[in-house]
């Protein structure tokens, strides 16, 4: 598993890795305008991590893709989501405090990128949580499978 796959797969992965991540961030970012959202975009980004794990093996895990960073980022996403939900607790849990408020995300044009109140922020929080959660599941399982294979 640590050796990775053939040079063809590795070369194609180098081309498509960044494109998949950019597309996933696009889906998260435009979640309140176009089909998609935090869950879907996060899954797309996590699929790029899965592709890198399959193509390069566990050798690609040395850098930023380590498990503790991913799990910390997952907590950050979950706490940001809950914090945004609690921000509206003066009216109701999950009340959209920023919509129609006239601030950055509170404009009145529903087609603008900075619209939707707390929706884009929640999309980012959930997207961060999903991409890091699925990536850490994959990494834990790959490490566990390699340990099983060497025993």
């Amino acid at each position, binding site marked *: 598993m640590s050796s990775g796959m053939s040079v063809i797969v590795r070369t194609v992965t180098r081309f498509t890795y960044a494109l998949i991540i950019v597309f996933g961030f696009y889906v998260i970012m435009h*979640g*309140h*305008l*176009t*089909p998609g*959202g935090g*869950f879907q975009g996060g899954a797309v980004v996590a699929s790029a991590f899965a592709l890198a794990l399959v193509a390069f093996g566990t050798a690609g*895990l040395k850098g930023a893709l*380590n*498990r*503790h960073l991913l*799990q910390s980022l*997952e907590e950050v996403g*979950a706490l940001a*989501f*809950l914090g945004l*939900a609690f921000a509206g607790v003066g009216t109701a*849990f*999950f009340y*959209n405090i920023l*919509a*129609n408020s006239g601030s950055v995300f*509170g*404009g*009145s*044009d*529903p*087609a603008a990128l900075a*619209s*939707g*109140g*707390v*929706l884009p922020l*929640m*999309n980012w929080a*959930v997207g961060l*949580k*999903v991409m890091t*959660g*699925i990536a*850490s*599941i994959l990494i*834990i*399982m790959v*490490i*566990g499978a*390699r*340990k099983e294979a060497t025993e």
Partner: protein
Amino acid sequence: MKKALTVAAFLLVAAFLVVAATTMRPFGEPSHSEMDDYFLVNCQTEVVANNVVTAVVFDYRGFDTLGEATVLFAAVVGVLALFRTVREDER
């Protein structure tokens, strides 16, 4: 006694299914769509978002998304508990 209980439970469930099937609304013709119409009419003015699905998932029914996020967290914790014996490969 046990057989009679089984037959009674079978008949009860069968009757429930038959009644449910006969009183079902015709497919594609919901008679109660006030909530759908409310979302479609008021989404752009209340939430100021063009994607009604995202508005429902993150605003009108945020609890649903909170539950989904909790399911993902439980999945991560479950996988971690399953492979927890790995010590020297931990990063």
